[in-house]
């Protein structure tokens, strides 16, 4: 590498810094006494040609200074800034004693596709991708307002991952923005790889099983959260956006609710709360009743239940745990395998559990119904994180039901309620709008009232501008 003699000390230092980085390119333009250093892997090749190659080929030595006066060239002096710039996708241009950075960042990214984890029936189908800039563009396309503010931070000593905090000025409460900012700045770690990982550094109680930041891959959800006065955090190289502050009940709403007729949206929401109830209690209740409270089963049903259980050699709690574990294994295997094989696993597993286990006398078919209903119900919950948390908690309730029957279930529920009562999201109550009680918010939490009634932003966001629409008279 033959460097321009006048800028040698700095250039040499930069090249030493990137020693053994095979993907680094160093190009020299001796006629205009200019050298360029950049990573072709993270720059946009077209931009490189248009902004650097083409002008440099045409320009004369005496015109170079003038060229660098253009605003896209940023003059820098410190070597640290130059290194950071090159790593962030800029080309470092060394001309005589001066150094300029030109941002030509353009890494290879996945095209915007449908979300795999948050599929919906009606409504926009685009989903976030790994590039934060693309994700921001998906949001900007939807919010054409100068009030949409974006703050950028760098997290991770090695990865230097960009984290963006998005909020709408005058709608979001700055108290939350500042709190989130404080928490982001506090993170000291070598690498952050995903939004899910970042959440655990930002949440109020990272050890809790329940997620306190709502995660989404859908830009329309992110936009609706921003409009509600919440704050969105995007992280580069992750399709996951984090919304905060969030409440427990928020995890049970889906964007579909607003795209359907209100009656349908309401019915769906109620269905999801029913699903929560079934997920948590159905299998546990089966265990409780068949272990301790047979008297609760009406006579006609008792015979069926007794027949289905008479060949099973285990106590109901073992039987239930066995089946629940089996379902979880199937679910996990289905999630890890390619889609086509995943489906096969589902069918094979379904047959094994549904028929063979019953015929072999390992389990009763009533339990199969209970376990399957619980599993199906758990997938009705729109947030994958919340659904996974609830499935995990369910195991505890089943064990408690096996130990002490109905009172065990009640104790388990008490534990959960006590725990979630103490949780906060960015310092605001996780149980909003139940505690603190805000009856006005119920119409957009437990039901989805017609839009004419949804005039205010949720109380949890403590928006300085709480009115979201003017009521028609």
């Amino acid at each position, binding site marked *: 590498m033959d460097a321009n003699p006048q800028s040698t000390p700095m250039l040499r230092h930069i090249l030493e810094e990137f020693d053994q980085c095979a993907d680094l390119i160093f190009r020299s333009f001796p006629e205009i006494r200019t050298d360029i250093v950049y990573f072709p892997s993270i720059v946009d090749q077209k931009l490189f040609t248009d902004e650097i190659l083409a002008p440099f080929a045409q320009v004369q030595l005496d015109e170079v200074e003038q060229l660098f006066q253009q605003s896209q060239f940023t003059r820098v002096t410190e070597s640290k800034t130059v290194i950071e710039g090159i790593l962030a996708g800029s080309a470092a241009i060394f001309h005589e004693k001066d150094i300029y950075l030109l941002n030509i960042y353009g890494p290879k990214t996945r095209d915007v596709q449908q979300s795999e984890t948050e599929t919906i029936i009606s409504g926009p189908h685009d989903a976030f991708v790994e590039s934060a800039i693309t994700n921001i563009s998906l949001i900007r396309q939807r919010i054409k307002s100068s009030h949409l503010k974006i703050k950028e931070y760098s997290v991770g000593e090695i990865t230097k991952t960009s984290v963006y905090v998005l909020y709408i000025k005058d709608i979001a409460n700055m108290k939350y923005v500042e709190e989130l900012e404080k928490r982001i700045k506090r993170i000291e770690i070598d690498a952050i790889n995903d939004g899910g990982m970042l959440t655990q550094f930002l949440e109020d109680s990272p050890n809790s099983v329940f997620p306190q930041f709502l995660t989404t891959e859908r830009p329309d959800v992110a936009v609706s959260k921003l409009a509600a006065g919440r704050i969105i955090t995007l992280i580069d190289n992750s399709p996951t956006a984090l919304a905060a502050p969030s409440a427990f009940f928020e995890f049970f709403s889906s964007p579909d609710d607003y795209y359907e007729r209100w009656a349908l949206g309401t019915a769906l929401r109620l269905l999801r709360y029913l699903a929560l109830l079934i997920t948590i209690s159905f299998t546990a209740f089966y265990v409780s009743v068949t272990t*301790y*409270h047979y*008297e*609760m*089963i*009406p006579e006609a*049903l008792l015979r069926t239940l007794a027949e289905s259980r008479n060949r099973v050699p285990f106590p109901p709690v073992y039987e239930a745990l066995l089946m629940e574990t089996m379902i979880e294994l199937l679910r996990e295997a289905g999630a890890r395998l390619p889609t086509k094989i995943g489906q096969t696993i589902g069918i094979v597993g379904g047959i094994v559990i549904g028929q063979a286990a019953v015929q072999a006398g390992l389990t009763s078919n009533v339990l199969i119904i209970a376990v399957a209903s619980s599993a199906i119900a758990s997938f009705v919950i729109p947030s994958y994180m919340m659904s996974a948390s609830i499935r995990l908690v369910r195991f505890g309730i089943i064990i408690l039901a096996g130990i*002490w*029957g*109905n*009172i065990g*279930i*009640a*104790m388990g*529920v*008490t*534990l959960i*309620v*006590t725990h*979630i*009562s*103490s949780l*906060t999201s960015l*310092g*605001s*109550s996780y*149980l909003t709008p*139940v*505690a*603190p*009680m805000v009856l006005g918010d119920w119409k957009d939490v437990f039901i989805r009232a017609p839009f004419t009634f949804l005039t205010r932003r949720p109380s949890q966001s403590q928006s300085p501008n709480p009115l979201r629409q003017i009521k028609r008279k």
Partner: protein
Amino acid sequence: MMEKLSPFHVAVLVYMSQIGIVVFALPRQLADYFGTNGWLVLLPGLLVTSFNIYLITLVHRLGDGKSVFEIMERSIPKAVLYPVYLGLCSVWLIFGCMIGKKYVLLFQMIAFPTTNPMLFKMAVDVLLFLLIIKGIFTISKAATFFFWMTFWMYFLLFWFLPSFSWVRLTPFILQGGHDQVKGALELYTAYLGYELSILLFPYMDKSKKSLAAIYAGNAFLSLLYICLSLVCFGFFSFGQLKKLLFPLLDLLGYIQFPFIERLENMLYGFFLFLILMTVAMYWWGALEAMRRVIPKLKIPVLAFLLTVISYCISFIPKTLDQVNNWILYLGYAATGIAFGLPVLLIALLLLQGRRVSRV
């Protein structure tokens, strides 16, 4: 974080600390002590409790919402106050503990006759410990959540309307009872819990609505008691009601669905939420009093010690009868505190006011 308890939460807290184990036996006690149409006695009960709450609100008004402990400490030397605090703590702690023990014994009687009740008691105490260490705001949130989780149960009373008969109420009023004074004192424990609202002053809004919320919580409870007792008097015959140990459980036992019956087994689990909140509030009161005596001890440590002490004490009464006796006597003491504490505080506040005006 909730900075202040809103009036709604105050009302829910008051109601949730009041409703407890007594509700199972209340209609029988009314029938037994006061005779026919004994449910009418609940109306003067509401008046007396409302008067007591009036005294409490007077403390709030005169003391400008200050903590009751601060008011006492301003006029009375700590050496004198410590035994008072210890007394308050003991009564509230053991009263709560016995309520928990009675629930556990009842549950053992219904579903687990061979299990050691102290095992259940330990589990309940662990839950209570986890709840009280989180402080009054978490207790309030949990109380509100439990309130809504149990709210639907009131609608079960409609189930009995087709079988309700006015004839069973009889045209006689308060005939066939005995020991009315003893009965009245015993029944008063059904209302207890509202007196703890005096400790909520520093945590609630200073508005009139918060004080009204205490009345509202108590009124809601009274309304519930009246509805429940009325249904029991009209569903069971008077003679039958007198003989039923826990009429509420028998009442719930009548509910049948095609896929489930003997609902009392399940609903008894729901009552855990109500009882837990009652005990949690009493224990929180005990904890608040003890914190004044040993302010340097961390709350979880103090709460743990109190929980262990109460657990050990709960070994003493073995049978349901013994527990009932403990509840009865501690109920007298708690009633005494309910009236005595506000009266003492009013007297102190008047004295303090006079001293200030002289200065």
